[in-house]
């Protein structure tokens, strides 16, 4: 079986008063976009810095494309791109000069063309000759993302990439991440704003106090959830809808409200799909069917992860 693109085994990072990352193991395959979720102080940034080699770790191993960080750090650098949660730029260089610096450092082939591609990908083409100091925070963030993408790394570590982006920038970020997913890259993306991650993550890793509380595909984690709060609305009240819902063994805490209801669903995602199908087949004109909060948010809330005190 081939090595996963990113394999972390029993990673531990010690700080003077706290174990920042404790026994963390996870693996990402090509095309995986994994949300690293956790409250402030959970160890997300430390994990990313340890994977990239910027933070010394006490124990464990990090492998990228089969190359271990401790033994082949240079091989790792070629295959891994790290975007920190702040935007380090040479303020007096222009955007394209900044990218040129890193293109040279990574010995990128067809430098000029690749720089243009990355500028275009991050919507910065018209800012290519602007000094970095004149760029807004969001633009700088996109520029640093462009720098991270320059050498076409196999694995990307993005630490809070959307924190400074405007709504349009976030939509563009999603597009970029989907492109990376399609290109078979493995992406580990951290955030504590769950709505940022929903929609493009196929895996989630939830951290609390340095420990990995849950890790798996979104579908797997959804299945592991004890219950899920759902709400449904229909157009014409026939009474059938409430009857169907109350007769389902998986529906708990049913609360009717006008032409709709809210309930906890304790069952497999497939059973939830079946329930919707039954409603429609029985003639209920369903006009809204949704979970309260997105899926990642529900997974996170049910993981028991809390803010560090």
């Amino acid at each position, binding site marked *: 079986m081939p090595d996963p693109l990113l394999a972390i085994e029993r990673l*531990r990072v*010690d700080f*003077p008063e706290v174990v920042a990352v404790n026994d963390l193991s996870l693996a990402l395959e090509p095309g995986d976009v994994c949300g690293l979720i956790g409250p402030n102080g959970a160890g997300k940034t430390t994990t990313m810095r340890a994977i*990239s*080699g*910027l933070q*010394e770790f*006490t*124990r464990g191993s990090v492998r990228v494309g089969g190359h271990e960080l401790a033994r082949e750090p*240079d091989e790792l*650098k*070629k295959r*891994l791109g*790290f975007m*920190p949660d*702040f935007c*380090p*730029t*040479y303020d*007096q*260089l222009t955007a394209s*000069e900044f990218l*040129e*610096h*890193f293109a*040279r*450092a*990574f*010995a990128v082939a067809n430098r000029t063309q690749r720089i243009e591609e990355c500028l275009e990908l991050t919507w910065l083409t018209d800012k290519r000759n602007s000094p970095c100091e004149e760029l807004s925070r969001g633009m700088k963030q996109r520029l640093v993302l462009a*720098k991270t993408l320059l050498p076409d790394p196999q694995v990307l570590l993005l630490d809070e990439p959307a924190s400074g982006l405007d709504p349009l920038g976030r939509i563009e970020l999603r597009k970029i991440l989907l492109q990376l997913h399609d290109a078979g890259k493995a992406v580990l993306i951290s955030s504590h704003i769950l709505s940022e991650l929903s929609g493009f993550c196929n895996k989630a890793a939830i951290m609390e106090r340095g420990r990995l509380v849950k890790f798996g595909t979104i579908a797997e984690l959804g299945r592991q959830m004890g219950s899920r709060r759902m709400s449904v609305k229909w157009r014409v009240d026939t009474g059938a809808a409430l009857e169907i819902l109350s007769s389902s063994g998986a529906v708990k805490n049913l609360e009717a409200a006008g032409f709709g209801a809210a309930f906890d669903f304790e069952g497999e995602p497939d059973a939830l799909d079946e329930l919707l199908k039954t409603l429609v087949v029985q003639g209920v004109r369903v006009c809204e069917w949704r979970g309260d909060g997105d899926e990642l948010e529900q997974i996170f809330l049910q993981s028991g992860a809390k803010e560090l005190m």
Partner: protein
Amino acid sequence: MKLFENPVFLTHKRLVHRNGVLAAVLIATLIGFSLLAGLISYLTDPGAFHFSSVQEAGKTFYGWVIGVEILVLVVGGFSRVARALADDRKAGLWDSNRLTPLKPAQLIIGYWLGPALREFYMAAALAGFGLVIVLAGHLPLTLWLGTQVLIAGTALFFGLLGLLAGMAFQRSQGILIFLVFLFAYPFSFIAPSRMLTNFLLPIYGIGNLFSSRSLSETYHSNMDWNGLPEIFGVPIYPVVLSLGLQLIIGAFVWRALVRKTANPFQPLLLRWEAVALFVVLLASQHALLWDLWRGQFPMPATNSGRNYFDRETLLPVVHGGTMVIGILLLAFASPSPEHVRVESLRLGFKNPGAIFSRSAVSLALALAVVAGAALLTQVMFSLAGSFQIFCVAAVNLLEIFLVFALLLEFCRLRHRRRALGFVALWLFILCIIPFILAGVFSNQAFARISLLSPGFLALSDRNDPEWRIQFWTLLAHFGVIVLLFIGWRRQWKKLLQKAV
């Protein structure tokens, strides 16, 4: 990778050029031109000046050129390099560069030569005018060549030190170089051809190139700026000695920089490097002093036909320098307790023996042995009469190194971020307070109990050594070491228990 393909160098070159170099080069040109004009003015109307010859006028004007060059290239270059690295570290760009496939040596070269380009241009303009002044002043071309080589070597050496400062501190680089000059300056005039500082900074080399017998007799009647320094009695060109020392120490600094770039979690100096550096510095210093006593200290020093400021004070001065260098090396090579704790977690060791081999305390013992051996070279043929002097001075160095190493680690373990303040406080109590008490109560006995005193007294106060008091003082200092050792051991044990 060639220099002009090095992205760090190219980026800093671009930044320097973007901020403008023309004004700086014009200023340097203006200074150079003014000095050249001064010489031309003398040549056309010698009566208007007080120079006795064309050569003297040439030397004076060229002296100003190299003075400005040193200021620009060594002091300015040092600050520029240190600030560039410190700023990039603060901004996160240093880490971004470290995550590229660039080799640590390539990164170091980029930061070493890139940020100070403006200063290099200015120095080049000044050097050009200097050459014209040397030729117009009928001075030997070797004067120009020798001084320029020394200035270039020192600039590169200080560039490396600037990188070290930028890597270790976030600011205060300017203060550091000021302290270096402040430290070196007074020693320059004690015995010019004998003090190591005069060769690490090429003070003697430049002075020697400038001096002629007539000038020496006129201006330096009490000093020795003529002739060649001697290493164990063998004459050596001061330019060669300066460049050699800068090269050797620069190589150690280079290693430290490359290692720190590759893995910032390692100490700045490895233990063997600290010992080797100490050996180089002490061996050079004692070799420069060799022909004064030829191993027969405390016999009166030989004169060798030269004028010395006060040759009898040289060994106590070197003793003081040994203390300072030893303490600095211990501070640089001392491991961070947190690093040792993480290592103990990783490797699973819990015994104090493993701590001892990693701590600066064992290094203090090694440095004391080196210092003792170096001192032995001055007394080895007169041991019958100087054994007590040697023992007191050597044991005193051992005690000072041990106290510092134990104190530093104890305070780091106990007081963490406030450690340096507490180290300074305890050193003040142990070393300086006794002198203050001696002044307040007009009683020299207080001064004798200072941690610093026994060695200095043994080496300088040879007529009234009072060996019995010296012995008890050393014993009392040893008591302090035992107490510190107990506290030090307890703190390490606590840390290891936490690691478990």
